[in-house]
């Protein structure tokens, strides 16, 4: 699964490949990303949502291993 980072999450790289064999709910995906990130990312990841180009995903939604998912930290536009 490919994860793309934005805003303050960019410091962990613009994009990472997460080895995932089966579909995962978003809440499990968040834990997987935490496990491969440094400790400072943990608190920020708690506030992040995961999204496709079409919409923000709910925590209980399943994400396929082939998906490209954006990790979106708290927003600050305007």
């Amino acid at each position, binding site marked *: 699964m490919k994860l793309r980072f934005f*805003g*303050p999450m*960019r410091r962990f790289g613009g994009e990472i490949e997460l080895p995932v064999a089966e579909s995962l709910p978003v809440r499990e995906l968040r834990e997987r990303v935490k496990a491969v990130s440094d400790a400072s990312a943990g608190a920020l990841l708690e506030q992040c949502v995961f*999204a496709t180009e079409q919409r*923000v995903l709910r925590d209980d939604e399943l994400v396929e291993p082939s998906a490209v998912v954006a990790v979106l*930290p*708290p*927003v*600050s*536009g305007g």
Partner: protein
Amino acid sequence: MSASGVRVAAIQDIAIDTNELLRRVTDPACGAVVTFCGVVRDLNDGRKVLAVSYDAFAPLAERTLQQIAERATDSQARANVAVVHRTGRLAVGEISVAIVVSTPHRAEAYSVSRAIIEAIKHELPVWKQEHYEDGDSEWLKGCSLRAHA
């Protein structure tokens, strides 16, 4: 194109041309046009700001802008909207967001414009990094989208 509606909802990395947006909402039935611009300010939390970089998840941000504008005009019999948010590095004084609304009368135009900027602040997948006089840079804390998920 319908008689009224969302005429522009875009994310762009070049300077915002408000005259062009004004032209896009022109409607002979609308006697009120309100333009709101968010502009890079030189001070935040007591720190001197030289510039701001905006990052965006552009495909979702454009969809979200469209939805925000549709929602804000849903209850209006007639309203036209052009809304654009910038990305990239902006100097103090540059326009980061512009919202131009035309409606038959002024009260609706102000109200639609206000609803759109408030929703942008809370929902648009865009991030702001301030660059300070002392050489430091910081991403602002922002609003979590988990409340909307």
